[in-house]
């Protein structure tokens, strides 16, 4: 297993492997959902097959044997589907999903250097086997093993069975490697059953005469040891995909060793995976004994050569050139026997190595990679550096302005141009971190499928805008809230088929998950066509649980949003899905911690719509700089509705010095005296002389922040206060202004709940402004 050793020379490659696994699993999940929906093409099956094949290949390179053995079986099942020998059915899709789970978990085990129980994944393997057992499979009869004069004395009676999948890369022949030689050597080891796969062979007119198109599966029964088998392929390991499967007497696979060359075509990722994912399954995958394999692989005889062959920075035993030389030497005898039966067959002398200088020889240019994999930390460093650059630029700009320099001055115009370039630079650097929400959305079909099955509900999930991009950090934090909201919709929102039919709705419910960019933010909607929120029930429960006062006068929207209150649950039965009453509160907190907002809009009997808005990035923010006393603060622009200076008639004092309200367009809005909350001497306290900035909280409440003056709008680079100082109430984070001063960014929601020190205060943002206004 993976050693927890920091000196592991392959640690870097393993990291890459697991990253690629994660991407492959995401793709697989998407394609599996397509399979289930019935909206798929043959390419969908190929894509799933390729993903499993790639995982198997990479896992083999690192000797993750359980993973290799399971993925091999999974791959086999998929190949049967690709070949049309298995038809899609609900049971089959179920098996694919179960296998996907096991595969996913095995990757997790490998990543954490953990060893799963022997029984882990057994049910999935049995399910796979049940399908394979139904498929007619041609198996080669085990022949008698010829007695070998070279067999070792210790192991004289021990017959080993190896299944060798050998798939030459197209350039293998040009490197003077000849399969006939390999086969001859194999035959010298024992009895060989040969199956050739000609599926890659193109039409004659399309053939490159010196390219390799055949691949083979050899069933070898030998008294020789595994090292002897490896030796046969020693000089072609860079020129082929090679899988050597050890099979025991009962036909069970005991070890699978996958070796991928880093030669031509292996330019995807870091060469850990198969370089030719479009390559059809090798014949053995269609001819492996049914019911033969168990996930009991233990050790691989010699994994080192595989790793060496697959790791681009680790030298293989010999370079391709050395291989050429070796082959020339080994074939110098001229005509060679074609098989072990002593035929006088001859093969061409690899002295034809000169042909290696052909148009596709080793010196030929390889395709350029379209993308590179970069450590996120490096990108973050770049983002921070650009942030600093923005700050410095703002400082210089301010100095230029303060100097009274004419706007036509070269320095002044140069500063303007530099501002534009830096802004572009910042946007492009931020774009590096942007990723499509697909990685999160792709998990949802599975959740819908599993949950709807548990609840015996019929649901169709539609996803829209999955290529909408958002910052990587936001994506990582988005999965849990989305999962919970989807579960909530399934559990509480959608009715059972019988209830839907009774309500005159289609039996199958609908959930739509969509994402789009709107106004510099990403907006995610989850819409269901279920029963909607039972407001009467929500209101009653909220009162019973003390979430709201007994006499609270709430609007429909306010009642709907009670589901986000801590400890609130309307489920008649607490289920293991979403009815624990903590979820939606956590959802809102998670979204808020990302600088986002979540709200719910429901129409009884018609459905519910959850609306999430999130910033595209957590690194920069468009803010309004405001002044209070001698201090400056940033208020996020997206929270601001408008700014007013009320007349004396619009302002009312609350009884007991609890605060002030401002009456605007028929509504009383609470004024938050920021200066007093922060205990700033000299802050204006009279709203008619100061400014009231109307802001909207996450819960949709409108508040008036009392500030002295506005200093203008500016994009600011967010700096964590916790990291650089400590958490401060009412403050979300900090930034650095052009003059070099630290400026605090207000946390509107927290401010709404804070009290003026020493006052009675209303404290909570309060349910029921009508009640508050009445006082």
């Amino acid at each position, binding site marked *: 297993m993976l050693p927890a050793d920091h000196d592991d020379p392959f640690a870097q490659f393993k990291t890459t492997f697991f990253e690629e696994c994660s991407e492959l699993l995401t793709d697989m999940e998407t394609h599996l959902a397509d399979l289930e929906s019935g909206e798929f093409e043959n390419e969908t099956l190929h894509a799933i097959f390729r993903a499993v094949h790639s995982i198997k290949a990479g896992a083999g390179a690192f000797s993750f044997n359980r993973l290799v053995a399971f993925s091999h079986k999974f791959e086999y099942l998929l190949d049967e589907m690709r070949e049309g020998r298995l038809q899609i059915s609900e049971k089959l899709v179920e098996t694919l999903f179960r296998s996907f789970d096991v595969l996913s978990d095995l990757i997790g085990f490998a990543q954490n250097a953990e060893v799963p129980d022997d029984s882990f994944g057994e049910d999935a393997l049995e399910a796979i086997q049940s399908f394979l057992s139904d498929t007619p499979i041609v198996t080669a009869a085990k022949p008698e093993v010829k007695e070998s004069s070279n067999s070792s004395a210790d192991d004289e009676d021990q017959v080993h069975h190896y299944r060798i999948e050998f798939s030459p890369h197209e350039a293998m022949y040009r490197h003077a490697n000849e399969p*006939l030689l390999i086969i*001859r050597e194999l035959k010298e080891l024992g009895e060989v059953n040969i199956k050739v796969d000609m599926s890659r*062979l193109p039409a004659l007119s399309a053939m490159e005469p010196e390219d390799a198109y055949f691949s083979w599966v050899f069933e070898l029964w030998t008294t020789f040891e595994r090292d002897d088998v490896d030796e046969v392929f020693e000089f072609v390991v860079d020129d082929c995909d090679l899988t050597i499967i050890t099979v025991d007497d009962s036909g069970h696979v005991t070890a699978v060793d996958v070796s991928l060359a880093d030669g031509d075509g292996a330019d995807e990722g870091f060469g850990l995976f198969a370089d030719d994912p479009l390559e059809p399954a090798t014949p053995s995958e269609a001819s492996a004994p049914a019911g033969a394999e168990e996930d009991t692989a233990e050790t691989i005889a010699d994994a080192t050569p595989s790793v060496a062959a697959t790791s681009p920075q680790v030298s293989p035993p010999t370079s391709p050139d050395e291989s050429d030389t070796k082959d020339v030497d080994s074939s110098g005898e001229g005509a060679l026997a*074609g098989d072990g039966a002593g*035929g006088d*067959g001859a*093969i061409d*002398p690899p002295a034809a190595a000169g042909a290696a200088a052909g148009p596709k020889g080793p010196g030929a240019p390889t395709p350029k990679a379209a993308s590179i994999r970069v450590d996120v930390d490096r990108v973050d460093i770049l983002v921070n550096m650009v942030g600093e650059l923005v700050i410095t630029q703002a400082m210089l700009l301010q100095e230029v302005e303060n100097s009274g320099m004419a706007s036509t001055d070269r320095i002044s115009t140069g500063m303007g141009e530099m501002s534009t370039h830096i802004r572009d630079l910042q946007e492009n650097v931020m774009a590096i971190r942007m990723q499509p929400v697909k990685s999160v959305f792709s998990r949802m079909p599975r959740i819908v499928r599993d949950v709807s099955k548990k609840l015996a509900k019929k649901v169709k999930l539609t996803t829209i805008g999955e290529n909408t991009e958002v910052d990587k950090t936001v994506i990582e934090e988005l999965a849990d809230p989305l999962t919970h909201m989807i579960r909530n919709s399934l559990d509480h929102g959608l009715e059972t088929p019988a209830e839907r039919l009774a309500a005159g709705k289609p039996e199958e419910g609908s959930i739509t998950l969509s994402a789009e960019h709107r106004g510099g933010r990403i907006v995610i909607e989850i819409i269901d066509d279920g029963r909607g929120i039972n407001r009467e029930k929500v209101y009653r429960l909220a009162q019973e649980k003390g979430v709201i006062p007994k006499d609270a006068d709430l609007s429909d929207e306010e009642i709907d949003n009670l589901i986000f209150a801590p400890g609130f649950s309307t489920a008649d039965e607490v289920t293991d899905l979403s009815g624990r009453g903590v979820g939606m509160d956590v959802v809102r907190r998670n979204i808020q911690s990302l600088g986002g907002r979540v709200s719910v809009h429901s129409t009884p009997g018609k459905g519910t719509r959850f609306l999430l808005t999130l910033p595209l990035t957590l690194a920069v923010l468009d803010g309004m700089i405001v002044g209070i006393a001698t201090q400056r603060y940033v208020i996020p622009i997206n929270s601001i509705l408008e700014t007013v200076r009320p007349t004396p008639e619009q302002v009312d004092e609350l009884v007991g010095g609890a605060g002030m309200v401002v009456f605007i367009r028929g509504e009383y809005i609470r004024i938050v005296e920021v200066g007093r909350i922060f205990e700033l001497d000299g802050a204006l306290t009279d709203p008619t002389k100061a400014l009231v900035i109307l802001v909207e909280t996450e819960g949709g409440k409108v508040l008036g922040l009392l500030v002295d003056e506005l200093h203008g709008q500016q994009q600011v680079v967010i700096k964590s206060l916790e990291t650089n100082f400590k958490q401060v109430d009412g403050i979300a984070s900090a930034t650095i202004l052009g003059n070099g001063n630290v400026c605090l960014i207000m946390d509107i929601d927290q401010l709404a709940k804070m009290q003026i020190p020493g006052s009675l205060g209303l404290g909570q943002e309060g349910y029921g402004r009508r009640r508050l206004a009445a006082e």
Partner: protein
Amino acid sequence: MAEKLAAAQLEYILPQELDLLAAEGLKFKLLDMVHHEGDLTLDGREVERVSTPCIEIMVAAESAFYESGRKLRIFEPSNTLSDAFKSLGLVAEIEKWSVS
């Protein structure tokens, strides 16, 4: 498209050396034959050295003939040629194509 020539039977004597360097020439020779009319008989008696690429070309050529409703046969393949086919797992093919 090459001009099709009328011919009831096509014949080609396979060279002694069917090594990698011979592959390109073999391909174009057989491709040319495909563009003629009639079945093709390859004379395999003289073959002394064989390579996998040449066998792949012969297999592709046989497919081309088969697809056009014609036949490709190998007349008295030498042991070398026959064994190479068999070693590569093409036992059925060489047995089917062989004529004497």
